């Protein structure tokens, strides 16, 4: 009904994008249900929703990656059929993907012209592409060296190459899928400046995100998606974060975690001057020192990719200590005393991995096999020669019982559990032994609301039992509500620390962009509202 209102409003000039009753199913899962969407020409249109709300599917349909089961796509007032990315490009749609679609070993110029070469000879193509790239760079203020090797560029610049790629193909409609996840606040600001410049020149921008503040900061209109449906179109000026958040999750968000103030005691985990170089010699961790005490939850905030993953890897024994040391329960671990993940567990460390599909579990295993990961050598699961499979099954069943994992079937393949139940099983495995130190990466990534509360409660009660907890999360709200103390990481360094009660989004945001330390009124990071 609302969409009809919009249609009549925009009748004077047809909208850039008009999607009507788009449906798409994957097997029994309905990813998009009767989705309607109107994007006005020359506007920035936000699409917001939680993970799995159907945003990406919808954009993939628009960009020709998937075909809709039913529905119509109208572009600039014309009914269009888009079967492939090629069709989308011809229609004037460009897309900047969350993971950049660039060839690292190509120059910027080669990446920009790939697929849109002017001639079958490369020399000719490069010549005309260079001129066009120059023109676009000046017109939109997108300076980038055409001969730089793409893989050597900073992330923000790579994203710029992606935008140039779309413009080079004559895109009038630009889709950006979660473009800020990997950017610092400054880079975000630069991106938003670019988007505004694009809008001024008549380009329509669709911004897909799950970050409310970005919607408020940059968009003209916003549509909320939930469970595969379009919930509500709104004019950004007439809405607010609270209303959008409510629309997104379908009820009032409970971002408060019920917990007593922390009573920190002795230090159980300490990192001393940790430095970690990657294979290219770049410091992923740069002189990181921190302490986690019994009875407290330390949160690590930061834009993803600023060393949090590497820190967890070193603190859990997955990566060997290169420089500096880790002191875990009084045991010193450094490059002369290298211990692996199993040894760390024996020192009473639990570790809930950031990414359960890559690390924390094996989706092809049954739940019972996943339930002993890291503990496969424990005597209780092993006979003299063979494993005690009955004990393994029993252990899994008991974990499932205690942590309410559904369905309660140890023999079911891990892939067949929902994200929330997978995470509960991982957390159950690590918490059940009451480790003195627990590392938790992204505690609630891809987890439904009901399970989030449960998981937070479990973490808090482990703390209350006198254990130390370290939480890494890219969700600021989660860090602020769950943790007692917060440190911020930026480019592998710790750039700030504060008590959770003193923290707010602005302070943390400034630190995450490494703009902290100065006057907090100094809003280098205009995105934080």
């Amino acid at each position, binding site marked *: 009904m609302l969409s009809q209102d919009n249609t009549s409003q925009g009748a004077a000039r047809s909208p850039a994008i008009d999607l009507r009753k788009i449906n798409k199913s994957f097997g029994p899962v309905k990813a998009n249900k009767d989705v309607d969407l109107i994007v006005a020409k020359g506007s920035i249109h936000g699409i917001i929703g939680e993970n799995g709300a159907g945003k990406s599917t919808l954009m993939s349909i628009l960009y020709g990656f998937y075909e809709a089961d039913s529905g119509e796509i109208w572009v600039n007032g014309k009914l269009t059929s888009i079967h492939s990315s*090629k069709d989308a490009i011809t229609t004037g749609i460009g897309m900047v993907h969350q993971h950049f679609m660039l060839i690292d070993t190509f120059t910027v110029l080669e990446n920009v012209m790939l697929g849109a070469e002017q001639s079958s000879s490369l020399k000719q193509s490069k010549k005309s592409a260079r001129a066009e790239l120059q023109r676009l760079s000046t017109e939109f203020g997108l300076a980038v060296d055409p001969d730089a090797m793409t893989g050597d560029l900073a992330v923000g610049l790579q994203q710029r190459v992606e935008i140039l790629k779309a413009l080079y193909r004559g895109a009038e409609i630009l889709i950006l899928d979660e473009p800020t996840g990997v950017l610092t606040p400054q880079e975000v600001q630069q991106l938003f400046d670019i988007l505004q410049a694009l809008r001024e020149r008549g380009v329509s921008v669709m911004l897909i995100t799950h970050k409310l503040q970005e919607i408020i900061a940059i968009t003209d209109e916003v549509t909320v998606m939930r469970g595969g449906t379009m919930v509500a179109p709104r004019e950004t000026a007439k809405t607010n974060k609270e209303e959008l958040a409510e629309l997104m999750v379908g009820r009032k968000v409970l971002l408060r975690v019920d917990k007593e103030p922390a009573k920190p005691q002795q230090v159980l985990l300490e990192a001393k001057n940790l430095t970690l170089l990657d294979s290219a010699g770049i410091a992923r961790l740069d002189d990181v020192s921190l302490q986690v005490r019994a009875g407290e939850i330390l949160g690590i905030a930061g834009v993803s990719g600023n060393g949090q993953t590497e820190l967890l890897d070193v603190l859990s024994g997955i990566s060997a200590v290169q420089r500096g040391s880790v002191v875990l329960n009084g045991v010193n671990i450094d490059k002369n005393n290298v211990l692996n993940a199993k040894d760390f567990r024996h020192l009473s460390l639990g570790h809930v991995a950031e990414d359960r599909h890559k690390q924390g579990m094996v989706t092809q295993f049954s739940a019972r096999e996943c339930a002993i990961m890291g503990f496969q050598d424990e005597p209780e699961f092993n006979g003299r020669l063979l494993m005690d499979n009955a004990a393994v099954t029993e252990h899994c069943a008991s974990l499932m019982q205690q942590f309410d994992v559904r369905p309660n079937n140890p023999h079911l393949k891990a892939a067949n559990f929902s994200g929330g139940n997978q995470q509960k099983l991982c957390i159950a495995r690590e918490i059940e032994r009451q480790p003195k130190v627990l590392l938790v990466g992204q505690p609630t990534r891809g987890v439904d609301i009901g399970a989030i509360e449960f998981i937070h409660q479990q973490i808090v009660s482990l703390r209350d039992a006198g254990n130390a907890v370290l939480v890494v999360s890219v969700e600021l709200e989660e860090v602020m509500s769950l943790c007692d103390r917060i440190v911020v990481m930026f480019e592998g360094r710790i750039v700030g620390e504060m008590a959770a009660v003193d923290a707010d989004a602005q302070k943390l945001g400034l630190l995450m962009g490494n703009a902290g330390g100065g006057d907090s009124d100094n809003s280098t990071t205009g995105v934080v509202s």
Partner: protein
Amino acid sequence: MSDFMLIAVSTLDATIRVSTPLILCAMAGLFSERSGIVDIGLEGKMLAGAFAAAAIAAVTGSAWLGLGAAISVSICMALLHGFACITHKGNQVVSGLAINILASGLTVTLGIAWFHQGGQTPLLSGDARFFSIDLPGALAVADIPVLGTIYTQLISGHNALVYIAFMTVPVTWWLVYQTRFGLRLRAVGENPQAVDTAGISVFWLRYRAVICAGLLCGIAGAYLSIAQNASFIREMSAGKGYIALAALIFGKWRPKTALLACLLFGFLEALTVRLEGVPLPLIGEVPAQLMQATPYILTVVLLAGFIGKAIAPKSIGIPYSKER
């Protein structure tokens, strides 16, 4: 001195003859592998091509028709590889292996059924074979010392397929580095998703790459059975496809370096024949088997990173599917 010269020239001459199929197969592998498709089926495609060439040349009496048949059959095998690995996302190593085994069995089975000579094809003569070509002026300069000898003995006097093989190297280089097709080919081997989102069909691009591979393996096969030899003999590819693969890796997936690797491996083989039973000063007699194993040993050593680093195209061996 002139003795040494003669020995040197004849060894190098043999090197050229032995290297020819290696070069063709290495360039074939280059197209396939730069597009992200592992090709251990070079051997099988070449063998099938060799059989087709000899069979058709025997029946029609035309070497060129034989060459055409070799190319067609080899491209068909390449398309089968593509069908399995590109369309059906099968394991590329398994598919390549299947092609090798299939070629090994089919050539002999069909050969016996059709020609009744224990898997061999009838001996070819006349127009049914590619014979050596004297380059212009070869006779005239033959008496000029050194340069003349080199021109007449080494450069001139090979059959057409040898010259074609050596020409494929600059052509491959030009295609891969100087054309739109080459840019896309290199891109799809590194990041197929980027190619797809740029509006280029990954499937069609990879199919074209394996077709190029089929074409060149077919020429290599024809060289074996109707140029270098006068008939098809069972298993006549004798691991050359694998040596070519080794040379491709040794040459780090680049045309010029792969050519050098092929010449090196070819030289080793020529030397093996030359040194058979001849004791060398200081080391004594080098076992022929050691010389034969040297290309493989060198490749293993290279792959282990002891001499430089061979970095494969990033997406090699991974089937492409749109679903993420």
